């Protein structure tokens, strides 16, 4: 019988990664004498080693064994906790992660790094006493049948540890043909018998091809509580089994009480044999490579609340269907109530389902203490990371995709923000720089702020650099925030020297693009000499969006609320036409280009004059535009559906949704629409629709 354990590999991997995170954060906070923490780090390593061995990830087992040994010494107090050791252990955590990832994906790994770290571990271990290493499995194969004579004299107290000779004997019987002779000579008189003690001893004869080690292994658990003597009876030939009696369990298992004066001889024949695979065979089934499916561990409370809600839904449903089967107007009140209840149930159910995808942002934040720790060593700057709001929940998908942009922002803060200690001291600041990471909910969004108390952004440097790169005109007048936004332009980097931390000016533009791809945005604020603040605004989930429904002609569109600045009725006096073909709307100090949606999408609208039309001012890529629509409808949450599944990507549309009446509505993609307007403007000479006044201009 073989048991296929490969189905447990994903859960082992998940658990291991969690374990590694625990080890890492534990090591970063490790102080001498914190025995609970060192125990939990040890346990994590221990579990990884155990699991890896089971699945045949031998390199993980071997490497983790070293780590575990070192931790064991720390745990027992045989080893002091030093910074050097902690560093090696942190590095080892990386190595284990590397090895496990390689095992998961079936990839190659950087064996040099593993070797170096394992050498360092070995050297560290040699400085201190090492624990005995006896993990190897001794497996000997003996094919020849041998005759063993086994004398087994258990101590009186053997049964007290839960051992029962009968099972030991049956286990022996599985190795071959066993002849059992019980010696009851030491059995006391009935009155003197202590029912908890074991008075019998046995002389056994075993004909088997098993090795002596196999036999010893069976007695492994009782070796200290018995006299055991195993000899090979070389002279004896296999003899015919004498009278065969099968072992009677009831009879034998009560041997302490057995009144048995005669020596009896029994032969236990092997039971149907279980096919035992001798080698510690590695599970050959390879884990599925890089599956994107992923899994979520959901707290039982969340599942319970779902079940409760479904229960309520069922009650409401049955109430309504009962009402419907025999309805008259006198029951209108009950119907209204019932429908309200249904609305409430549905809403709660939706929220609960969404909550299943929600994880505390600590999953993304967890790696940052280590990152800052490493960066501090690399840059020689002193700094501290303060994390707030780590319990703030965020959709799993968003979480997975926000990690890298955040890493970059933190690297950026360390590299460009925090000053070297001596400069900080000279400027009257504390020696240690402070980077803080904060997450909180605001409206339907999550806001993540990364701030530092460093030198701030030098506006003039950024400006000059942008001019130098040809990104802006030297005479341009820009607001501070417009200048800071230049940091996100492709190819922009203000670092005097390129460092290996923040890279070569690739990054900030990618950061911005990634955040936008998630439907979010990023803002920068900075005070020279005091520090900078990067504020990332993200939707809580990618599956649901808060939208403003608008009407254009017969069509309903959805504008993501996150990109709406404000909505207003156009007033004639703020309208300006520039360059002959571009309409601008004066919104306080901004001039906002007007994009009529009907024109962009080439559909009929009720309202194709600018006067008194409705304008929804939206912002994307730092560009504000006014979308001209016929009517504003409700605001509501919509479930995002892809158009790509059965169709293809449509410019200016990010997806579709199904409205309450079952009809489909398109969700507007603001950056895409701005791009469309630009392309259209470039082709404006070839305007196909002369009956419509051309209003979209090249405003950039």
């Amino acid at each position, binding site marked *: 019988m073989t*048991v296929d354990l490969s189905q447990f590999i994903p859960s082992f991997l998940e658990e291991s990664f969690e374990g590694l995170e625990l080890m890492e954060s534990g090591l970063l906070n490790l102080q001498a004498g914190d025995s609970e923490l060192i125990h939990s780090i*040890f346990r994590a390593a221990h579990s990884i080693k155990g699991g890896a061995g089971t699945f045949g990830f031998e390199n993980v087992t071997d490497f983790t064994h070293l780590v575990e040994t070192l931790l064991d010494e720390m745990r027992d107090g045989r080893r002091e906790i030093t910074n050097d050791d902690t560093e090696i252990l942190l590095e080892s955590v990386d190595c284990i992660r590397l090895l496990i990832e390689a095992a998961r994906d079936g990839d190659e790994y950087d064996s040099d790094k593993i070797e170096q770290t394992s050498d360092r571990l070995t050297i560290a271990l040699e400085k201190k006493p090492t624990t005995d290493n006896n993990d190897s499995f001794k497996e000997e194969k003996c094919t020849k049948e041998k005759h063993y004579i086994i004398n087994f004299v258990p101590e009186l107290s053997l049964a007290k540890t839960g051992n029962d000779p009968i099972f030991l004997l049956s286990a022996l019987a599985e190795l071959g043909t066993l002849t059992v002779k019980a010696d009851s000579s030491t059995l006391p008189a009935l009155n003197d018998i202590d029912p908890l003690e074991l008075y019998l001893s046995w002389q056994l004869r075993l004909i088997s091809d098993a090795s002596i080690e196999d036999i010893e292994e069976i007695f492994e658990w009782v070796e200290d509580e018995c006299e055991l003597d195993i000899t090979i009876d070389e002279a004896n030939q296999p003899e015919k089994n004498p009278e065969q009696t099968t072992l009677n369990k009831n009879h034998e298992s009560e041997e302490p009480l057995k009144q048995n004066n005669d020596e009896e001889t029994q032969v236990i024949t092997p039971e149907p044999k279980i096919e*035992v695979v001798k080698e510690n065979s590695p599970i050959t089934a390879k884990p599925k490579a890089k599956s994107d499916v992923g899994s979520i561990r959901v707290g039982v409370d969340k599942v319970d609340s779902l079940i409760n809600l479904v229960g309520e839904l069922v009650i409401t449903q049955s109430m309504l269907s009962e009402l419907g089967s025999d309805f008259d107007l006198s029951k209108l009140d009950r119907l209204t109530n019932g429908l309200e209840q249904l609305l409430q149930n549905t809403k709660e159910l939706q929220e609960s389902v969404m909550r299943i995808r929600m994880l505390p942002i600590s999953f993304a934040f967890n790696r940052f203490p280590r990152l800052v720790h490493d960066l501090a060593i690399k840059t020689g700057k002193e700094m501290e990371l303060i994390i707030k709001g780590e319990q703030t929940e965020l959709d799993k998908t968003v979480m997975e995709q926000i990690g890298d942009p955040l890493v970059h922002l933190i690297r950026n803060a360390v590299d460009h923000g925090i000053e070297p200690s001596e400069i900080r001291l000279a400027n009257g600041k504390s020696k240690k720089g402070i980077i803080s990471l904060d997450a909180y909910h605001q409206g339907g969004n999550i806001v993540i702020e990364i701030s530092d108390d460093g030198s701030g952004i030098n506006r003039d440097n950024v400006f000059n650099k942008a001019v130098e790169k040809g990104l802006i005109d030297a005479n341009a007048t820009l607001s501070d925030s417009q200048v800071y936004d230049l940091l996100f332009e492709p190819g922009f980097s203000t670092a005097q020297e390129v460092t290996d931390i923040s890279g070569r000016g690739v990054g900030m533009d990618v950061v911005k693009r990634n955040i936008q791809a998630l439907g979010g945005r990023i803002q920068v604020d900075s005070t020279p000499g005091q520090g900078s603040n990067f504020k990332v605004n993200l939707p809580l989930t990618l599956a649901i969006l808060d939208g403003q429904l608008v009407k254009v002609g017969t069509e309903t569109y959805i504008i993501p609320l996150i990109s709406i600045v404000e909505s207003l009725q156009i007033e004639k006096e703020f309208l300006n036409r520039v360059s002959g073909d571009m309409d601008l709307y004066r919104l306080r100090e901004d001039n906002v280009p007007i994009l009529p949606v009907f024109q962009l999408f080439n559909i009929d609208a009720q309202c194709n004059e600018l006067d008194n039309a409705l304008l929804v001012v939206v912002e994307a890529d730092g560009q504000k535009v006014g979308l001209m629509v016929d009517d504003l409808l409700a605001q509501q949450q919509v479930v995002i559906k892809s158009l790509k599944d059965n169709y293809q990507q449509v410019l200016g549309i990010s997806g579709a949704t199904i409205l309450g009446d079952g009809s489909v509505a398109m969700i507007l993609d603001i950056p895409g629409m701005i791009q469309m307007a630009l392309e259209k403007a470039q082709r404006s000479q070839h305007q196909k629709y002369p009956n419509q006044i051309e209003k979209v201009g090249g405003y950039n």
Partner: protein
Amino acid sequence: MTKVLVVDDSNSIRDMVSFTLKSAGYQTTEAKDGQEGLVKAKGGNFDLVISDVNMPNMDGITLCTELRKLANFKFTPILMLTTESSTDMKMKGKAAGATGWLVKPFNPEKLLATIKRVVR
């Protein structure tokens, strides 16, 4: 049916042990640490306890000591599931009343073969 209590803080190990035992026709109950194990042990009879040593809240050795104090568990086989096969650990286990130990890495066939030494 033979009832086994499986105590381990690692989900995957616990699942695997349980799965292996179930596939061989045993009935299993799981607990994620010694404390939960003890509570579950008090709530029912078991023919075998398999427990990890290193666990939060209550470790396996303590669990073993506590179980032996219960009338129901005086003779119940208790096996420690551990990578630590050092004599030190064996002595500690024995002293606490453990029946035996199972050495990780966990191998399902070996597990099934080995527990035959203590249960049917």
